[in-house]
C-alpha cells in the first residue's frame, strides 16, 4: 500500500485559539480512517483545513497528498484539486445544496469545471452518477430542486457530486448525522461500496462510534484539538487504551442495560485548547496523576496502535 495522505503537525489557529493542535496521521490509498471526537474537538476544522476552505485561519504543519503539500499550494492549484482529486461531503445535505439550482446541474457543474465537459456530456454523466448512488427515477430527479427531495436523497446527490471526478480521497464530515437512522445505514453502505469499487480513500468524521465500527480500517480519536489515540478499528473497540476512548465506548447506550440505569457519561466538559497545559483530558480523567501536568506525546505501542497517555488502560 502506498501512502496517499501524510499529515504532519497540522495546527489551525483562529486568533489565539488553537482549534487543531499539531495532529499527525497517514492514510494509504483506498484506506478508510475514522476521525472520532466530541463536537468542537477540531475534527471538522482539520478536514476543512485540508480542503483549503478555512478563512481567517493560520495553518501550520504539512499535508502531503500525492506528493503535493495541500497547505502550501496556492489557491489556483488548490482549486484544480478540490472536487477533482479531493472531495468533501457535509453534515446537512438540505443546506449544503444550493436551493435555487436543479440538483442535476449541481452535479454537472463539477464535471464541466474539472473535465471541461459540455452541457450534454455532463448531464449524461450526472445521470450515470445518480444511478450509481441509488437515486430512483434519476431522469426525473436530475431536474428536481433540493426542497423537492428527502434528506437522504439530497445526501446521495452530494455524494454523486463528490465522486463525479473519481477523487482519490473523500472527506465525509458527519455525513449521516442529520439523517434518519434507517437512512443512515443506507448512506454508510453506499459510501463503503463506492470506496471499495473505486479504490477511493475516505476520512469519515463522526462523533458516533457506532458509525465507525463497520466502516473504517483505522480510527483516530481526537480530544480538544489533538489525536489522543489511533488504532485499527477492531483493536480499538476490543481494547481501548486511552481513558477518553474508554469513556467514549462506555457512553454508548446499551440495549441490555436496565431501564432505570443512568446513561454513562464522561464527567466535566471539554477544555478549550487555549488554556491547556499538560494532558487536556486530565481534569475529567479518573486516572490523572501529577505526571499528567506534562503533555503526553502520541507514542506508538505496536500493532499499528498509538496512544497519548501516561496511564493507558
Amino acid at each position, binding site marked *: 500500500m502506498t501512502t496517499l495522505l501524510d499529515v504532519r503537525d497540522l495546527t489551525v489557529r483562529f486568533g489565539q485559539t488553537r482549534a487543531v493542535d499539531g495532529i499527525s496521521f497517514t492514510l494509504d490509498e483506498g484506506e478508510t480512517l475514522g476521525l472520532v471526537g466530541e463536537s468542537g474537538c477540531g475534527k471538522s476544522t482539520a478536514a476543512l483545513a485540508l*480542503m483549503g*476552505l478555512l478563512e481567517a485561519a493560520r495553518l501550520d504543519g504539512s499535508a502531503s497528498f500525492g506528493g503535493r503539500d495541500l497547505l502550501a499550494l496556492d489557491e489556483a492549484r488548490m*482549486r*484544480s*484539486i*478540490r*472536487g*477533482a482529486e479531493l*472531495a*468533501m461531503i*457535509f453534515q*446537512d445535505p438540505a*443546506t*449544503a*445544496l*444550493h*436551493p*435555487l*439550482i436543479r440538483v442535476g446541474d449541481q452535479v454537472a*457543474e*463539477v464535471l464541466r*469545471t*474539472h473535465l471541461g465537459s459540455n452541457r450534454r456530456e455532463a448531464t449524461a454523466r450526472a445521470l450515470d452518477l445518480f444511478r450509481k448512488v441509488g437515486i430512483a427515477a434519476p431522469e426525473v430527479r436530475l431536474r428536481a*430542486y433540493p*426542497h*423537492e427531495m428527502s434528506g437522504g436523497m439530497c445526501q446521495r446527490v*452530494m455524494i454523486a*457530486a463528490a465522486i463525479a471526478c473519481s477523487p482519490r480521497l473523500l472527506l465525509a464530515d458527519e455525513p449521516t448525522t442529520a439523517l434518519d437512522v434507517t437512512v443512515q445505514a443506507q448512506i454508510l453502505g453506499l459510501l463503503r461500496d463506492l470506496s471499495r469499487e473505486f479504490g477511493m480513500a475516505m476520512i469519515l468524521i463522526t462523533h458516533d462510534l457506532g458509525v465507525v465500527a463497520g466502516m473504517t480500517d483505522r480510527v483516530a480519536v481526537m480530544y480538544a484539538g489533538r489525536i489522543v489515540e489511533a488504532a485499527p478499528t477492531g483493536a480499538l473497540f476490543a481494547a481501548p487504551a486511552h481513558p477518553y476512548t474508554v469513556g467514549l465506548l462506555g457512553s454508548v447506550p446499551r440495549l441490555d442495560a436496565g431501564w432505570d440505569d443512568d446513561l454513562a457519561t464522561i464527567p466535566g466538559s471539554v477544555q478549550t485548547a487555549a488554556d491547556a497545559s499538560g494532558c487536556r483530558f486530565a481534569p475529567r480523567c479518573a486516572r490523572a496523576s501529577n505526571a499528567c501536568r506534562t503533555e503526553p506525546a502520541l507514542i506508538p505501542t505496536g500493532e499499528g496502535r498509538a496512544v497519548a497517555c501516561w496511564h493507558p488502560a
Partner: protein
Amino acid sequence: MRRYVAARLGQAAVLLLGVSVIGFALMHLAPGGPLALYTLNPTVTAQDIERVKHLFGLDQPVYVQYVKWVYGFLSGHWGYSFFGGRSVAPIVLERIPATLELMGSSLLLALAMGVAIGIWAAVRRNTLVDYGTATVAMLALSLPTFWFGLLAIYVFAQVLGWLPAGGIETTGNGSLIDRLTHLLLPMLVLALVLTAQWSRYTRSAMIDILTQDYIRTARAKGLGPVRVLVGHGLRAALVPLVTLAGLQLPLLVGGALVTETVFSWPGMGLLFISALDNRDYPVLMAILMVGALFVVLGNLAADIAVALIDPRIRLSHV
C-alpha cells in the same frame, strides 16, 4: 400562476381606485385652485369666473366631479387640460418615452454598479474597500438629489462646459450622440442614489449568503471565484434584491420627478410639477394614475420574477 396574476390584477384595480379617491380629494382640499389667480385680476369679473367654473364643471359637488372623472377615465376620455385646452391623454402619454428613457437607463446603470460594488464590499468586508464604499454610499444617500443635480450642472456644464445643462436634445439636432450627451448627466445623478442603495442591499444580502453551507459546497467542488460569487452567491441574492427592486419603484418615480425638474427633462415629472403649479386637475390626475399603475405593475412583475427565480415560492394562492 394565471389565477394568481388575475387575482393580483383585481387587487391592483381596487388599489388604483383608492389612489384616485385620495388623490382627487387631496387635490380639491388644497387651498386655491385653477382659477385662484384670476380672482385677483381686476379685468376678470366674477361672472367670468363663474362662467369658466361652470365650463370646467368645478361648480358641481366634488363627489359628482369625481364620479364623472372616473367614468370618463375608464371610457378613455381623460378630459382636457385647463391650460391650453389640449386633450389630456396625448399630453401625458407623449411624455412617457422620455421618462422611461431616463428611469430605465438609470435603473440599469444603478443595478450593474450597485450589485458589483455590493459584492466587492461583501467579499472584502471590514476592509478599506468596505468602509470606503459605505462612506460614499452614505454620503450619496444623505444629500438630496437636486443638490447633486445642481452640482453636476455647475461642474460639467458651467465650469467645464463638457455637457449640456438640461433638455433632452439640441433643437434641430436630434442625433444619437446629441441625445446621449443630454442623457448622461441626469442619468448619472438619478443613478447615484439608486447605486448607493443597491450597493448596501447587495452587500448585506451577500454577506449573509456567503456564510451559507451551499457556498462552502460550491468552493469544495473547486469552482472558480466568479462562479462561486455570481453563479451561486448572487443567484441566491436575487430573491431579496428583486423584491427590493419592486419596493423601490415609488422612490425611482419620485427621484425621476426631481431630476427631470432640475435638468428640464421633458418627461412626466416635469409635466407634473408644472401641472401642480397650475392646479391643472385633469393632467394631475392622469399622471397620478399612470404613475400608480406603473408602480403596481412593477411590483407585480417583481413578485412574478421572484417566483421564477425561487422554485420554493408558489404563486398559487394570494
